[in-house]
């Protein structure tokens, strides 16, 4: 199996705190990889690095795309060095101006947030339409005049939005404000919204937080469907161990910003360092 995403010795410090310390891991294509670890271990920070919200201070994040490799860290620009020549400097300047987060998303990395970030005042279906922004006909004139090309592109987006609403079972609530949905529905809508950008990799930050057992079961079915039916690679942060153990192909355990174990669910469960990190047994 080829790996879709490769992290090579990623480090990130916030002042004195070392949030991530030389984290290396590989995510196999079309797999579900879980990242677990105690509170404050640096899981969300790792996601923020992968999705371009933070810029890793050291290391590379490589996304394999067909034959091409993209370094997601380089997409975010960085400090301009004179030795690199004017062209690269200009490119970094433009990146610096616009920030590169949206470029990471465009290269095929979608995410959800630990504290849900929907467009609360907008309707459910509008949330899904915004995610398809890049795939739409954005010509102003075509829109003002309602030309056939524009109508077709809107109709296609709407069809796709409803397709996803049926998948997550929200078809009946399509035109109600997203902020009025129940917590579980909001979580699922956020996943559907992330899927609407046609990602290769989707990063889910604690998707089961605040869900009841039945909703959690539905969620595990949905996550498996993302892999099997829609062929995306899933990276998931989760505290619910039974969910993690039942869905993941691969687990990475983080503690104090370091990878302390990785492997299949069985291997990780048996690892004494993981038990120590979670239960706080004596350090040797």
């Amino acid at each position, binding site marked *: 199996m080829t790996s879709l995403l490769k992290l090579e010795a990623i480090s990130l410090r916030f002042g004195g705190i070392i949030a991530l310390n030389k984290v290396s891991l590989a995510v196999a294509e079309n797999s579900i990889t879980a990242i677990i670890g105690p509170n404050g271990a640096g899981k969300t920070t790792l996601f923020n690095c992968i999705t371009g*919200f933070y810029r890793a201070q050291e290391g590379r994040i490589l996304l394999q795309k067909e034959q091409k490799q993209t370094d997601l860290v380089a997409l975010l620009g960085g400090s301009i060095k004179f030795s690199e020549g004017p062209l690269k400097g200009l490119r970094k300047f433009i990146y610096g101006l616009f920030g590169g987060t949206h470029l990471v*998303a465009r290269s095929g990395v979608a995410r959800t947030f630990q504290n849900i970030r*929907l467009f609360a005042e907008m*309707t459910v279906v509008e949330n899904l339409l915004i995610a398809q*922004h890049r795939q739409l006909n954005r010509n102003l004139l075509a829109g003002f005049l309602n030309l056939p090309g524009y109508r077709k592109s809107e109709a296609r987006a709407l069809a796709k939005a409803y397709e996803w609403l049926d998948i997550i079972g929200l078809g009946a609530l399509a035109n109600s404000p997203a902020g009025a949905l129940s917590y579980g529905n909001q979580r699922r809508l956020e996943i559907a919204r992330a899927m609407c950008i046609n990602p290769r990799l989707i990063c889910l930050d604690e998707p089961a937080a605040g869900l009841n057992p039945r909703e959690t079961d539905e969620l595990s079915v949905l996550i498996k469907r993302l892999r099997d039916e829609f062929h995306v690679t899933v990276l998931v942060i989760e505290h619910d161990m039974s969910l993690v153990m039942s869905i993941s192909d691969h687990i990475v355990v983080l503690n104090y910003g370091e990878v302390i174990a990785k492997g299949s669910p069985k291997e990780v469960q048996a690892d004494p360092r993981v038990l120590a990190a979670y239960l706080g047994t004596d350090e040797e």
Partner: protein
Amino acid sequence: MSRRPVSRTMLLSLFAALITLILTGPLSGLVLNGYDFTTRFAAPLQIAAMVLILRFIAGLLPASWLAPKQKHEVEPRAPRFKTYQLVLGGLVLYLALASLVLFASKYWLAVGIMALIYVLLGLGLNVVVGFAGLLDLGFVGFYAVGAYGYALGHQYLGLGFWAAIPLAALLAGMFGMILGFPVLRMHGDYLAIVTLGFGEIIRLVLNNWMAFTGGPNGVDAPAPTFFGWEFKANVTQGGVPFHEVWGLEYSSGMLDAFIFLVLLAVVGLTLYAVSRLRGMPIGRAWEALREDEIACRSLGLNHVWTKLSAFAMGASIGGVAGVFFAASQGFVSPISFSFFESALVLAIVVLGGLGSVYGVILAALFLTLMPEVLREFADYRILIFGFAMVLIMIWRPRGIIQQRRPFFKRAGS
């Protein structure tokens, strides 16, 4: 319907009267005579008594009368008309309004032009504040750019009215982008203060750059022409007089009538465009940016570009309004572009209902026509204005017309 106890109402009314006395007492009770002053007790007591009575009456009304009448969310609604119906309806409405030109006096035409200019300004600011949620207190700056762009463009480059409209839109749009860059990372109050400063900078530059803008003396703006026809008694721009071509009696209202007709068409087109924007990808992106910038970035939207485009779009509409202002006045000076104008336009947008296109029209017409109708109360204009604003904000906190979200039907159903 719960009624509050009378004794408590009495107490609150007394309290309100006392506050009024403290606030207005020194203003109305002390009469200055040179370095000396005399006191006058009747006036402040009268005011306080009035407040006491009004407050007491208000207290006796059922509480639900004073409660907001608007729900937090309104149901989205599918568009009720087809595009061709809208176009037909628009044409009929245009003809109906245009025929006003035949009856209206020059005075009312001038009032109508100002009302339409404010509708245009309101529509422009609505894009920035209502859609993109960027509180812009310096909107008058773009209005000034458009007005001066026309006047100075004619003076230095010989630009005509028709060339000035698109060029002013472009120029003001560029200024919008220039303003947008430094404030990209700002929100809410900070953004409001910076944009306020921007509006003032433009006014001060216009006021002090004597050599280029004529400073406080202002600049003449040429009267518009139409394919070489001039709407003046004597031609000044090398065309032919309109009234001679058509064998009409000259009247000074012709120019206003012409400007009114063109402006009405421009307002109609802008109205159509802005109301379509909401359902278009760019309009949705602006609203999404207002709701959550971080989520926008996670979906691959370029938040910088989206924000700048909102500023530019709003500004260029403001610029076009400026051209019409200059053309209708025949003269521009910095006095016309004070902060009060920005506040007025913002009031139009907020009163009308943030994001609501039709609300903005109602509010603009209300705020510009009301002072003309109430000429006798000219001294109390701002007072009535403020009073209306407070009342509307109590009863309809989301504006006169609350915007509805567009409704999206499932395809094939």
